[in-house]
């Protein structure tokens, strides 16, 4: 998962659908995120590359909606409801995740173990393994070159390029 800015990137992604939980007045997802293009990437304990400014899952509330849905600590969030998360500010990511109007959040996440697992179990052939796991293709954004908003739109477009691994 070494990303070269501007170069196409391929990642195994997993779709995770999280049903928000009403807790008092808030709808909660039950996890914490870290990272973002406005954050110091060197402090991200989860990223491989210290220049990765992506949004990562840093904590999961045990038994919370995210936990139930299978989100894991250290997951890198690629998309939220179709919005790109690979080159956004921390706050933007948080806002996208906590939209009050949406009860369900659909995430595309990637994680190291996922990739390894796929590689190991299937080798180079793209044998279907998980119904909700897919290869995700896109162009890794140039850090800081494109504006966040545009990047998101493009990402949405690129989603079509992704193909899911199906049996």
């Amino acid at each position, binding site marked *: 998962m070494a990303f070269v800015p501007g170069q196409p990137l391929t990642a195994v992604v997993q779709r995770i659908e999280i049903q928000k939980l009403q807790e008092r007045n808030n709808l909660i997802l039950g996890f914490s995120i870290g990272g973002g293009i406005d954050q110091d990437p060197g*402090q991200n304990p989860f990223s491989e590359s210290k220049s990765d400014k992506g949004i990562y899952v840093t904590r999961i509330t045990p038994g919370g909606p995210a936990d139930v849905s299978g989100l894991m600590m*250290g997951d890198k969030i690629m998309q939220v409801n179709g919005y790109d998360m690979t080159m956004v500010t*921390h706050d933007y990511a948080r806002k996208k995740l906590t939209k009050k109007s949406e009860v369900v959040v659909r995430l595309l996440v990637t994680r190291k*173990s996922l990739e390894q697992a796929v590689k190991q179990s299937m080798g180079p052939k793209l044998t279907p393994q998980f119904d909700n796991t897919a290869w995700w293709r896109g162009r890794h954004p140039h850090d800081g070159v494109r504006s966040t908003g545009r990047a998101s739109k493009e990402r949405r477009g690129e989603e079509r390029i992704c193909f899911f691994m199906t049996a």
Partner: protein
Amino acid sequence: MWGIVNKPVNMLLVSPDTWQIQAVSLPAAPPSPSLPLLPHAPPRCEEKVRCHISMPIPSQPATKPVPFTVVVPWLPDSSWSLRHSAAPSIHYCSLVLGVGEEDGKSVSKRESSGRGLVVSNEQLDLSLTRARLPRLPSLFIPPPSFALLDMLTTSSSVSPLDTQNALHPRCLSTHPSPCIRLLSSLSQSQALILSGTADVSNTCHWRHHDSDIQKKIDHEIRMRDGACKLLAACSQRDQALEAAKSLQTCSTRIMAYMSELQRMKEAQVMQKVTRRSSDAGPMDDRLPCKGKVAISDLRIPLMWKDTEYFKNKGELHRCAVFCLLQLGGEIFDTDMVIVDRTLTDICFDNTIVFSEASPGFELRLELYSCCSEDDYSAGSTPRKLASKLSSSLGRSAGKKLRAAMEPGPCSPVSNGGASPLLLPVPSVPGPKYHLLAHTTLSLSHVQDSFRTQDLTISGNEESSYWVPLYGSMCCRLAAQPRCMTQQVMSGCLKVKQCGGDPQSWRKVYAVLKGTSLFCYHRQEDVEANVEPAFTIAVNKETRIRASEKDPHSKVQNICISNQYGGEEVTHTLTTDSREDTHRWMEAFWQHFYDMSQWKQCCDDLMKIEQPSPRKPAPVTPKQGSLYHEMVIESSDDPSSTVSDILARRLQELELRSQLGTSNPWMSLFEENNPKSAGRPRPCTSRLSGHSPCSPRRLPRSPMSPHRCPQLGLLSSDVSLTSDSDSHCSTSPCSQHHGWPEPSSNFSLMSSSPSRLRPRTLSLDAKLSTLRGRGFGGGGGTFHCPCQPAPSSLLAAIPISARSPLSQRSTQTTLSCSSSTSSNSSTNSESSHSPESSEGVPFSRPSPARRSLRNLRARLDPRNWLQSQV
């Protein structure tokens, strides 16, 4: 003969040659006077305005001086001076000078009322002169006011000579020297009333005193001007605080001198009155001796909230405080002390000695405080301008300008609740001290040891200058009456012990001082510090009487009786002459009187440590408490090394506890379980079912903490570290859960049940918090530099027991490395580790480790936020 102009205001200037200050005292029914008024229009420059007031013939011949009052319209311009020449028969005359209206109102309109009573039909000559033109006449806005008139009216019931009543803080003294002309900028309601007397005999004493005080006032005013200039020029905060402090002190001194001057003049009037009304009986004018009063070791305990003090949390509040001590006309200030929450007590090292205290003294102690963080530089533009102008225009013009620009008299708050400020402190931008607490000490508080006194707190917690006072103050208040330290009387005596041989008179040189009558053989022995031949006690138990006339001699004897162990011993003194005997008797009476007045101070001589005139910048140890002397400042500090070792050790422990961390993914792929495909549930949970650790996994559904005991533990950790941001910032080295480790213990290890908003701490705040924690010295707090776990740890981890698979993963991880060392090392431990079953469920972070993590996180200069969603 009374002229009261109905628009008088504020101001007065009178040459002190013959005029003294007196309050208004108006008789109720005045004869209707012919009203010779001063020209109501303001006198022109270089002009002399004359006013002849002819005194109407009183209804009855005056045997006593009766005060009268003249009100003169005036401008608040100090360049004018008033002279008068009064006929010798006029003994008193009160002058009220006020600001009149500058436009031409007819004189007749000003004859609002004529009140007063005059002694004779003599003439009173008043002349107003001024030397030069005011430079900025447009700035002199005469404030419209009926204030004085009101005052006159209200005080009209006061009997003419009741100076007690009449003398009120509104009075103000004046001074002939130019610098005191400042006084002219009084507020509207403050009128100055001067009373004059033509009778200048018998006034030598007070006048001498008077000029002394006026010199002092001069001096203080110059000091104050200097302080103002300094304050305006100050760029450093501490300089400004010091300058503001001396300004405050000077102002208070001026006030005190003024009122003393006032008192003296008042006393003189009184004296005259009583003398003239000669029916007053013989007054016992015995006055107790003066003495020294010293206050030292001032300590004012503070009461910080524990969170502020121990945890060093919250906004750092810093105040500059000092004490102003006033006893009569003597005013001293202490050093300035900067107070913040690291101080448990405010300590003033100064010893302050008042040398002119009478036994009825009242020592007023005022604690002033000023928030040292206030933005003092944001003075209002006009003030700045004024101060600039004043420095550029030259002294007098600038002063006038400043006076004119001042919105009003300085706030009485800064005046410490004393009488209203007649003398406005020139307002300059700068720190302002506020009265925080005060107390008044008197003779009964004097004790030759430390004592706690109550403080009256006048600030409150909301004020910016607030310092959490405990409400008490410790100090040592000692007094040395002069009768204890100086010779009261000395001279040659013949002494005979009673009951002895009638012929055994001993000739001695006796010195009465303190509680003894020292009897020396010769007078030279006194200077030579020779031990006295014998000593006769003279204390409160001693009885002294004049004996019957000795049949053998013509003079009266003095008998001194003392009780020595139940036995009365009487000494008989005799002198050469009758006058000497009287002098001695008088001295004894005075001595006894002094002792009775000074009470406990005359039992023993209290020690007073003389303050050294100018201490060479006291190298006071940094004030603070023990807690703060345990600072771990730098990393080369040995203690820091120790804590480093501890930290490393902790990390090791942490690693060990994670050795067993199994990776469900790994195990999954080892088993290569194909069943997982096509399952509807998220893979993690499904997979964890196959993982060896799965039984320890928490139930997923419950959200309630009651069902997760570990959560309770976690939250207790939270409360131990008591940092709201402890879960929100993570540094690479503190976060020990990496990517490939989605093991079941996550839920226990690092999720926090508390929902805390992430908070961004500035570096300063972090460091101060850190230091605070370091100071706190709690068992679980360690000071450790932010650095990843030492690589030696990595190397130390055994690789032997790894499965090929996990080894591969290790290699991958290590090859892309860089992330966190602890990550990789944790990673490198396979799930086959024998400890795995024990390690996982109990691997919640200990408080110590958590706080270690927090420390590290806080040391990071940059943020890596985490947001709960």
